[in-house]
């Protein structure tokens, strides 16, 4: 699992006139949580969609374990991802939803039950997902990402909607997954949480790389990770409230 990495090479994505990701290059290495930060609209979610082959880059490329995601034949065994917890059919039960995903990659029903147990949803496994709260959907999305026991994991704002207990659970889960030697890319807007969870930080703004550093370095130079973030992204905030 040691060489399990995500690599971006001059990744660029235009949507019509919008430049969402601009010549972005960085690597995410195994063994620790890499925090992925940036203001609203910076291009974090877009970058993750490009890595997963959902959107096609305008130029450049994104590689996972040295290969383009779209060329993986059973991708859930290599990469797990949670992009949007709401992206589920509300009419299906949690169990059936996960089993639909599991079957595509030859993952067993036993493993589905295990993953539900792991995220604390066993009790509502047969309930319709449409009736789930945001936090329950986040847990379901995390279960989906963990199904194939992948070496690379990507989470787009997974703590959104989680209760304090859930926030701590995510923090511990991320750290223990990283400690097992996995590669973890985690985006979030909660700086204090990120400071506790991540070891390395990638900050982007307006689609460009602003900083690639460790949490230790940033907190040594600035009073806190939040101060570091504020100082580094001051010029890149696009959707800020008037002060």
């Amino acid at each position: 699992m040691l060489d399990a990495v995500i690599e971006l090479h001059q990744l660029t994505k235009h949507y019509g006139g919008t430049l969402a990701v601009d010549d972005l290059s960085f690597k995410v290495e195994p063994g620790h949580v890499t925090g992925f930060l940036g203001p609203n609209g910076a291009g974090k979610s877009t970058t993750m969609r490009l890595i997963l082959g959902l959107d096609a880059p305008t130029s450049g490329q994104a590689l996972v374990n040295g290969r383009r995601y779209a060329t993986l034949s059973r991708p859930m065994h290599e990469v797990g991802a949670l992009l949007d917890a709401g992206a589920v059919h509300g009419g299906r039960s949690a169990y059936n939803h996960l089993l639909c995903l599991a079957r595509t990659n030859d993952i067993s029903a036993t493993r589905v039950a295990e993953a539900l147990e792991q995220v604390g949803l066993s009790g509502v496994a047969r309930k319709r997902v449409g009736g789930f709260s945001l936090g329950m959907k986040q847990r379901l999305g995390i279960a989906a990402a963990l199904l194939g026991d992948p070496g690379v994991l990507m989470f787009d704002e997974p703590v959104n909607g989680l209760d304090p207990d859930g926030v701590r659970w995510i923090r511990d889960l991320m750290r223990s997954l990283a400690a097992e030697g996995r590669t973890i890319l985690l985006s979030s807007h909660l700086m204090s949480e990120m400071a506790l969870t991540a070891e390395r930080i990638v900050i982007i703004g307006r689609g460009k790389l602003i900083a690639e550093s460790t949490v230790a370095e940033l907190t040594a130079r600035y009073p806190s990770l939040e101060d570091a973030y504020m100082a580094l992204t001051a010029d890149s905030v696009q959707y800020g409230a008037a002060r």
Partner: protein
Amino acid sequence: MKAVFSSEWLKLRSVTSTYHTIGTAALMVALGAAWTFYVSGLADERGSLRAAAPEEGFLPLVQISLAVLGVLAITNEYATGMIRTSLITVPKRGTLLLAKAGIVGLTTFVAANAILLVTYSASRLIASDRHLGFNGTSFADDLPKLLASALSVTALALVGLGLGAAICSTAGAIVSVVALLFVLPGVVNYLPPPWNTRVATLLLPNLVPQIADERLSTRLGDGFLPPWAALAVLIAYPIVTLTIGYFLLRRRDA
């Protein structure tokens, strides 16, 4: 591939819309029985008469209901965002669409045959030995028409799937299917002859009688297409729409 098929099979079985669409299609049985009771009553008063066969008259109901099943197989994934989750688990988009097509095709073919056969049998039983115009022929004679009808349902469901993949919108795809089935045949009447009848022979609703080697409606004259050609045109419909759907699905950002 087998893994993706089994996933798509579970996806179809685990949403209620599947049961609603098949249930609506199965209304044909009740409507067909009611129709046969009605014309049997008329026949008891007047002796014999010429009524339309219920499995022919109500075929559009089965076609449109199961076409909606085909449409929803992909557009409900766009509506919910599930398509992204699906494409993360199966990044090869052609494989995903092919598995959906296989499952939609099999399900609608089995459902259509079952509904048509039950309607057919029930109406013949109800008609008993009255002369209703549609019950004079043997089952062996009627079989090609029944199979062609079921095949037309499957073709239309796959057209729905292809259009759904191309347009991504439930409403848009259903409107397109309705246009193919009900609007286009009306519009074609206004083409200058002989183009009205020539084009009409290629339209979905007119292919079933031509495959069964029957006369089209008297206004259109006899079908221009021999059964094998009509069958080829019927099969071309889903192949063309699914191919278009595939290319758009492959090129588009999900």
